[in-house]
């Protein structure tokens, strides 16, 4: 009987010891899971999604405290729509890649967190290593909200074989550009394909010496330079030398270029991998855009921002991820995969072989000293749509450049004065 009782007692303890051990193990595992901070990262890097995923995987493997969950959520415009839909809800990401014209609006609406206290802790040699214009872009009203990672400038792409056959050189002025486009146009192809995106129109205006918004934040869409840019496009279209596609039609535009139906194009340097994706039957390269004296180019790309809903832990984790991304080795990997401009000086020597392979890859970098920020007023986000629509109306033959620009200016002023 005693034996029997003793057996029951020992079994009882055996079972409970096992249960206790399992519970303790679960608690430890659970605790370690809680200690790892999750950072959801929404990005728009379609043509470099493999590079983003590889970097995120390497970061996650490099430490245990932070786990980044990167999600490609469509183009900048699609990402903007999805962010606005998720804004303030549990679906809102911790880290978001905000296109630079959208960035001021996010700041103005208080949707993102200031990061000044974190960047103030960065060593001076690190801060000084960033390209000043790209580093300054993330600051607004004396606070830092954005972190630089992917920056670009528009460049000119061309079909090397077609220019060689036509016996023309890549144009460096707008007069030469017009003549080259006409010289390349034949029964087989149009000399130039243009996607009616506000950024590319802004590039034309800036390179002619104009601005879309003056230093007081007032729109100047009806400037002489804007008229000259739009008239040039309109005349090329009327002569059949220009293939026009709307702002959301970049894929057919790229296909037209790849199919040799158009021979020159303006686009971001980061579009190069998009072209490479197709089997190009000709040699393609890029160079600086045509430039008038005193001209400039607009910066492009995005800023990484921490959304308002993120906890202090998540914000710090997102910053740790960015700090790792911004190390020279990771930036070099990023540039080689995406073709974006290196945002730190110390990265450039690591890219010598990459740029030597095709000097055209450095076209955007060579324009960096002429690059200026896009207008940093919250209303510019809406002005982009006004510009896209204006180009559609003119280049689809529905109105004259003068009328379209006057109407666009009226709409832009209404946005600013709203």
């Amino acid at each position, binding site marked *: 009987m005693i034996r029997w009782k003793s057996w029951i007692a020992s079994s009882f303890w055996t079972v409970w010891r096992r249960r206790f051990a399992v519970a303790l193990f679960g608690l430890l595992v659970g605790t370690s899971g809680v200690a790892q901070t999750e950072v959801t990262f929404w990005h728009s890097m379609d043509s470099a999604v493999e590079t983003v995923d590889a970097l995120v995987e390497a970061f996650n493997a490099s430490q245990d405290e932070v786990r980044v969950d990167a999600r490609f959520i469509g183009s900048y415009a699609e990402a903007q729509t999805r962010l606005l839909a998720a804004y303030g809800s549990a679906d809102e990401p911790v880290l978001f890649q905000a296109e630079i014209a959208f960035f001021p609006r996010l700041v103005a609406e208080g949707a993102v967190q200031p990061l000044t206290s974190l960047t103030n802790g960065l060593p001076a040699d690190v801060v000084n290593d960033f390209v000043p214009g790209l580093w300054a872009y993330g600051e607004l009203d004396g606070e830092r909200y954005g972190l630089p990672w992917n920056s670009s400038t528009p460049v000119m792409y061309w079909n090397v074989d077609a220019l060689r056959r036509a016996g023309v050189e890549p144009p460096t002025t707008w007069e030469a550009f017009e003549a080259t486009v006409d010289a390349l146009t034949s029964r087989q192809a149009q000399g130039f394909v243009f996607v009616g995106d506000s950024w590319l129109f802004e590039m034309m205006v800036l390179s002619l010496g104009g601005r879309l918004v003056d230093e007081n934040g007032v729109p100047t869409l009806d400037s002489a330079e804007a008229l000259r840019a739009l008239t040039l496009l309109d005349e090329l279209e009327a002569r059949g030398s220009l293939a026009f596609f709307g702002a959301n039609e970049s894929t057919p535009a790229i296909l037209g270029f790849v199919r*040799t139906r158009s021979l020159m194009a303006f686009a971001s340097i980061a579009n190069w991998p998009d072209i490479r994706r197709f089997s190009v*039957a000709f040699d393609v390269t890029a160079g600086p855009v045509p430039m008038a004296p005193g001209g400039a180019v607009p910066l492009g790309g995005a800023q990484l921002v921490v959304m308002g809903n993120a906890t202090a832990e998540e914000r710090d984790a997102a910053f740790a991820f960015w700090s790792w991304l911004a190390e020279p080795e990771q930036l070099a990997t990023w540039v080689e995969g995406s073709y974006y401009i290196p945002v730190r000086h110390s990265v450039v020597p690591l890219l010598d072989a990459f740029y030597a392979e095709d000097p055209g890859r450095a076209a955007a970098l060579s324009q960096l000293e002429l690059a200026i920020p896009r207008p940093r007023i919250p209303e510019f986000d809406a002005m982009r749509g006004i510009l896209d629509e204006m180009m559609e109306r003119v280049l689809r033959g529905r109105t004259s450049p003068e009328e379209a620009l006057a109407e666009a200016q009226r709409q832009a002023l209404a946005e600013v004065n709203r």
Partner: protein
Amino acid sequence: MWRVVGLAGLLGAVGFAVIEGAGRALGVRTAMTPSLWLDGAAFALAGMGLAALYVQAWSRGGWARRVGAALAYVALFPFVTALLGGLAELTFLGGWGYGGFIREALLAGPINLLATFTLELGVVALPLGVVSVTLLLIAARSPRQTA
């Protein structure tokens, strides 16, 4: 045989004129070479070459063989035409010395013409192909006139 091959050449030339006209009307670049004549000749020769290849199947084959040969004619037409256009451009207008030109003429060209025939001008090109091959089938099956 020669009657069918000749008709195929004529239909190729007519097809070229229709595609060229439709392309101009709709703002679609359809040209394979800078020359109208070379493009027209490529269309006609492609039609003749393919008809010579399939005329036996059309005239003597069973139902399935005739249909199969007709489908093959329509499917191969853009590739053969573009290949002839590319070869003509490289030969008569220069370019054999440049790898890029050769790739353009022999790779981009066929893809371009296929896209033109299906995506850009499919509404015109596909009915045109069906009508052409039907006429060729009828011509191949009809008894030869004897004196």
